[in-house]
């Protein structure tokens, strides 16, 4: 009897402890504009059985519009993509989804950035991608395993006690009151769809964004890490194998794919074909297939700057185009047609010579802007820039730069620079970037 009482006491204490954890989390964590919170709720409580599930990082939830995929696949599709979702997050979400649904097909988006991001899960420094999933997962062994494996022990407190990440809110009572007002609102309680700036949650995981890159407007203020210098994470590969194994066990058809990205990004990132080779070798011998939509022939998928929200992700327009092609292709509408090039190199070679965008590096110490055009042309000789600096004092200086693209400015100067890129005498790109000291 005495032991029985002790056990009851321990259970009650744990329950009390968990209730306090939930309460603190409710009081401190601001997730009133979280898309993932709504997506996770819909994943746990779908209107009907989820037949087709999409998983992956932001390329997934920004690329596949479930309103279109539902129509073409003629079944209930669900997009469980989330920001920075790595393969361990994908596996955990898949576990949650298969527990509650009879899933027939799973499509996992595998952009080249995720496997090379991490050397190992235990070395992770950024945990946002993990927490935006785990915070909304129901308590289970799967959740505990996911969090324990996602990082080293020093992150555990942040992982299991979300209020710790926002503890400062406890000392801002006014802010906390505002937050509570939002949380007690009908919209929040009933998981109303969230609009945040240009972004809007459209249901079943898809988030659309109306932002558009203007024609010829791709640029980056830093050099992209080269794919050929990447090391592919062993942990990520292991999680992919777990996904494959789970799908095989449950009899689910599994497909990996890469959503389209701008050629500007891929050309600037070096040897993209190396990533395709890596994925092919990873999936060799498994039942899963890999499709890279960056290799699509232009007659099937032709995307311009206007179809992207930034140098990485599709916008609303782009997602519509891609979702159509994706669904049609996998639903069998394009059977017998070879919509892909053999390699990315082949695709680029097939394109007319052009300038995709500009990498601008601002050396503030030296007072120098260096411009590097990202192009598929063999020679850079026919490229030149016209740059017009507008300093903070409003003084405008026009400069015709040489091909090496160095634009000096006086040290301490700050302002914006308007850069026009000419290729074979025709203006191809036009960007405006800030420069100089903060």
């Amino acid at each position, binding site marked *: 009897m005495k032991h029985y009482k*002790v056990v009851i006491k321990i259970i009650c204490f744990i329950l009390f402890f968990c209730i306090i954890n939930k309460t*603190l989390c409710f009081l401190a964590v601001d997730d009133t504009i979280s898309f993932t919170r709504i997506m996770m709720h819909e994943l746990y409580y779908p209107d009907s059985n989820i037949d087709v599930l999409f998983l992956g990082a932001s390329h997934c939830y920004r690329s596949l519009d479930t309103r279109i995929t539902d129509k073409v696949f003629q079944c209930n599709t669900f997009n469980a993509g989330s920001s920075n979702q790595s393969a361990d997050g994908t596996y955990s979400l898949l576990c949650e989804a298969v527990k509650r649904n009879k899933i027939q097909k799973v499509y996992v988006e595998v952009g080249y950035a995720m496997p090379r991001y991490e050397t190992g899960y235990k070395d992770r420094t950024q*945990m946002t991608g993990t927490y935006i999933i785990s915070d909304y997962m129901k308590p289970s062994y799967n959740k505990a395993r996911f969090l324990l494996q996602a990082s080293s*022990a*020093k992150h555990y407190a942040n992982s299991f006690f979300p209020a*710790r990440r926002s503890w400062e809110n406890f*000392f801002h009572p006014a802010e906390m009151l505002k937050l509570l007002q939002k949380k007690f609102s009908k919209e929040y309680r009933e998981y109303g769809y969230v609009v945040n700036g240009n972004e809007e949650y459209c249901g079943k995981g898809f988030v659309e964004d109306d932002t558009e890159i203007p024609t010829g407007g791709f640029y980056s203020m830093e050099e992209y890490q080269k794919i050929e210098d990447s090391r592919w994470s062993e942990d990520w590969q292991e999680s992919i194998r777990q996904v494959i194994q789970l799908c095989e066990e449950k009899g689910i058809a599994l497909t990996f794919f890469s959503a389209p990205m701008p050629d500007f990004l891929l050309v600037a990132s070096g040897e993209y074909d190396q990533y395709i080779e890596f994925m092919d070798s990873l999936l060799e011998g498994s039942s899963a297939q890999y499709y890279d939509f960056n290799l699509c022939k232009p007659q099937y998928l032709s995307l311009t700057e206007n179809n992207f929200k930034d140098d990485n992700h599709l916008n609303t327009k782009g997602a519509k185009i891609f979702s159509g092609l994706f669904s049609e292709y996998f639903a069998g509408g394009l059977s017998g047609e070879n919509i892909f090039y053999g390699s990315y190199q082949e695709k680029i070679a097939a394109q007319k010579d052009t300038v995709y965008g500009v990498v601008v590096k601002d050396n503030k110490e030296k007072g120098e802007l260096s411009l590097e055009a990202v192009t598929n042309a063999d020679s850079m000789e026919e490229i030149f820039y016209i740059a017009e600096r507008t300093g903070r004092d409003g003084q405008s200086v026009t400069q015709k730069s040489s091909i090496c693209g160095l634009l000096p400015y006086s040290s301490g100067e700050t302002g914006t620079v308007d850069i026009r890129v000419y290729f074979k005498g025709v203006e191809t790109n036009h960007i405006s970037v800030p420069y100089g000291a903060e």
Partner: protein
Amino acid sequence: MGVTSFAFIIFCIITVFVFYMLPYRMRWVWLLAMNLLFYVSAGVLQVVFIVMAACISWSGSWLITRNYQKEEIYFQNTEGLAKERKKEVKLLNGRKRKGILFCVLLLVLGQLAVVKYNGIFLHNGSLFCFFGNSVQGIVVPLGISFYSLFCIGYCIDVYRGQYTAEKSLLKYFTVVTFFPCISQGPFERYGHLSEQIFADKKFDGQQVVFGAELMLWGFFKKMVIADNLSPFVTEVFQPGSGGGYGGLFVIAAAFCYSIQIYADFSGYVDIVSGLGRMLGIALVQNFNAPYFSKSVPEFWRNWHMSLGSWFKDYVFYSVLRSSWCQFLVKKAGKVFSRKVSMNIVTSVALFINWFLIGLWHGLEWKYILFDLYYGGIMILDIWLKPIYRTGNCSAFFYRVFQVGRTFLVVCFAYILLCAGNVSEFIFHLKEIIFYPNPKRFFSYELFAMGISRSKAVMLLFAVAVLVLVDILHVKGHNIRCEVAKKNIVLRWLLLVGIIYAVILFGAYGPEYDVSTFIYQAF
């Protein structure tokens, strides 16, 4: 394995759980295994030093005990021996024992000196250059200052005949390496610890709960208070940079440091005492609300009590009882009154005592001056006692004044302890006098120095709780027992409140460098 790490908590749970699962006679073996595991986690090579210290002190004390036994047998077998012959034998054996003790002291302290101070010896000149490169770059082994003194204390106790030497080296090793006390104390005595380690103890749920609560309170002090104050103190007293923020910053940092070091060290002691209690072992008390002391001697009776008591028993009294001190008393007695001559000898013993404590803290002038500062105040206290300890000392406001005065004296010494060296200490003093810099101090810059506004508010709450608990202790309350009598909702609310305070506000995790305990450096 840091005492505030996740690994340590798991380690403790396993240790306690298996400890009570095992039969009585096997428990000390389990403790020995866990002690070794704990020690090995700090570095396999470090075990060599503790094994050496233990072996030397065990062999030495065993030889001393054998000598005592032989002497006793000799006297039993030679009854009726002439008194003079007996005295001669006793003297001879006494010398032998003294010789053995001297060798043990030399070897154990020698090892401590070589390992702990090697960098300084090598750096400062050629006197100790014969150690060559072999000892250069040795990481100071975990707790060497603590277990070396433990071993020495044990040998002296055996030498003084307080108890016979332990026959089993393994049992002795279990006590020496007892992991809760190994890195920062408290300074235990062999007899006190071994009695409890080898006693047959039944599982006592209430004690385990009390132990866990004490550990939790320790985590609160260390992780919520000490580690959150650390960035500000470190910023102001940045080693080598000489600070430069201004006198008010130095004063604020010294006050913060006084809280930090107390929360840090007493937090550690609470953690290990809590663990000890869970294992049915009561460790000696190390703190007794020291900042409520009315004088510096009282402060040192309440601060790191086990260190003070160790030096009092093995250094201070040894010096007082030494033949040359007795000689000094006699000589002084001829010139001065007995009280004055006693005061002279006590002052000399105090000076030596505090000088050695300074050396123990570290072979740096700042440590020696820090401890001599206290030694000096205590010597003054002896001489001036008759003058200032007259009149009514029990008035409340006078007691408050005394407590405040003692606290200020202690805080002043902390500036020396925090400064990189003596010249930086002088620089900080100059800052206080000539460059207080109130404009900068009262600007918002204070909040950009590791303590944000939210953290400052949180720390105020936490320190208020700490002060309240100390006040209750001073008033004689046993908080844990009193809380245990309250109803379950209140008890759980308190418990969960402290657990969440540690989880939410504790300085640990990816944003923080794990702060080592301040006393671990000594």
